[in-house]
């Protein structure tokens, strides 16, 4: 199966690869997937405490090209959003943007899950109750 140009572009020039200091209170870290499943995604957000806006986002992903592209795209979309807006990023929007075929939908789900996990980590650190999300349907 051929990859879409957007997937190839994110794969070749991934945006925001890296690591934020997870010990900082304004950094939320989401680590999802499992090595046995062949995909692990770590997504981090750094929140401006005054405004509640995500000022930086970084990722590292072990997975296929679509997973790498999904996380790269997610970090781009996260920057500039408020924490509450962040959780509205839906995996299907990623699917559409990247033109992912059905077998690769779960890679985008992973990105959505990583965002939610990062937001919850941030909330927990800052004394806010964790949000409950409906179990995503994967695979």
């Amino acid at each position, binding site marked *: 199966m051929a990859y879409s140009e957007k997937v190839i572009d994110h794969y070749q020039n991934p945006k925001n690869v890296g690591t934020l200091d997870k010990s900082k209170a304004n950094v939320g870290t989401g680590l999802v997937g499992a*090595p*046995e499943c*062949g995909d692990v995604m770590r997504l981090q957000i750094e929140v401006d405490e005054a405004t509640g806006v995500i000022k930086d986002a970084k990722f590292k*992903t072990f997975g296929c*090209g679509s997973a790498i592209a999904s996380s790269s795209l997610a970090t781009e979309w996260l920057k500039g959003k408020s924490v509450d807006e962040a959780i509205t990023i839906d995996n299907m929007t990623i699917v559409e943007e990247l033109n992912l075929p059905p*077998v690769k939908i779960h890679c985008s789900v992973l990105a959505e899950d990583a965002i939610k996990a990062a937001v919850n980590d941030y909330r927990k650190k800052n004394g806010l109750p964790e949000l409950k999300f409906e179990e995503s349907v994967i695979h």
Partner: protein
Amino acid sequence: MLNFPIYLDHNATTPCDPRVVEAMIPYFTNSFGNAASRNHPFGWQAEEAVDYAREQVAKLIGADPKEIIFTSGATEGDNLGIKGVFEMYASKGNHIITCNIEHKAVLDTCKHIEKEGGEVTYLKVKENGLVDLAELEAAIKPTTILIAIMYANNEIGTINPIREISAIAKKHGVLVFTDAVQAVGKIPVDVNKDGIDLMAFTAHKMYGPKGVGALYVRRKNPRVKVTAQIDGGGHERGMRSGTLNVPGIVGFGKACEICMNEMEEETKRVSALRDKLQNELLKVEESYLNGDKEHKLPHVTNISFKYVEGEGLMMGFNKNIAVSSGSACTSASLEPSYVLKALGLGDDLAHSSLRFGLGRFTTEEQIDYTIEQVTNTVNKLREMSPLWEMYKEGIDMNSIEWAHH
């Protein structure tokens, strides 16, 4: 000058050798006869061509031409060999011994047999991918009629001790079937020296055309019979009906002849390239060879690059280099390779594997380019891999609670 893309997936299929194509061409047009037409020159010509090819094929494996049954490929050969014995020898027993890293054509055939009331033992291979002879012998019982163990594995290239296996089988009066798709034409295979009773192989893995193969069925010591799985005009001595694929068979014969004449030289050349590729790639930190290092086909190597995922890895160079991976991300089922898992590799290593299959037309320049591309891509992806980061920081990944799904 390098021409792209470079093909390093010769265990999946091989290109037709131009000499094979040349031999086939007349049998599409001028000499198009049906080999079963006994009463005119068109039929005679076709029959003659098939007879000649049958000799070429038989010679490569040390068989008698009468022991060759042409099929549509090895999937059919596996089905006919195993189901054919199961049905033919039903009065002797219903137990078959095979192993857990066989090709699906064998495994699914065995599953089918279980549904038909047969009993199948799936031996677990050792960590190096080879069958344990003691376990094999211990699995034999009075009802055992067949041992079906592959000659060489298609994913990791390991070669089973077929002679020892057949010696054990003989001792217990059990027949030996082997799927020799990956071995025939690449390494010396001799049905008599190796003690093989039935053997499936296929033309498209040895520079012949797709859609044609053979089942070897022993005629002496012992005389083996199989129940036909395709009924009809009684071709191939009643064991496989259907008008013969004359051009395909001619090509198959030619492919066998070329392999026979050139195997020694080719093995030397290709295995030197394989060794170079393998040695260089194993220099990459945290890379692991899958399958036995010694008992292995000359043209294949399977390596896991820990902490990077196979499909993501291939994406780095698959416009220019064609290889395959055992990662789940490459399969429709989203399951990693059952062969690699059977070696006891953690799933993470199975996801990180690449199989390189070299061939007759592989050049050193191609190998050098591949070494460079793969190494660079592994390094690039590790910079992006959270697992690599954890590894480098000395974090025990088993201590993490992964969200399995």
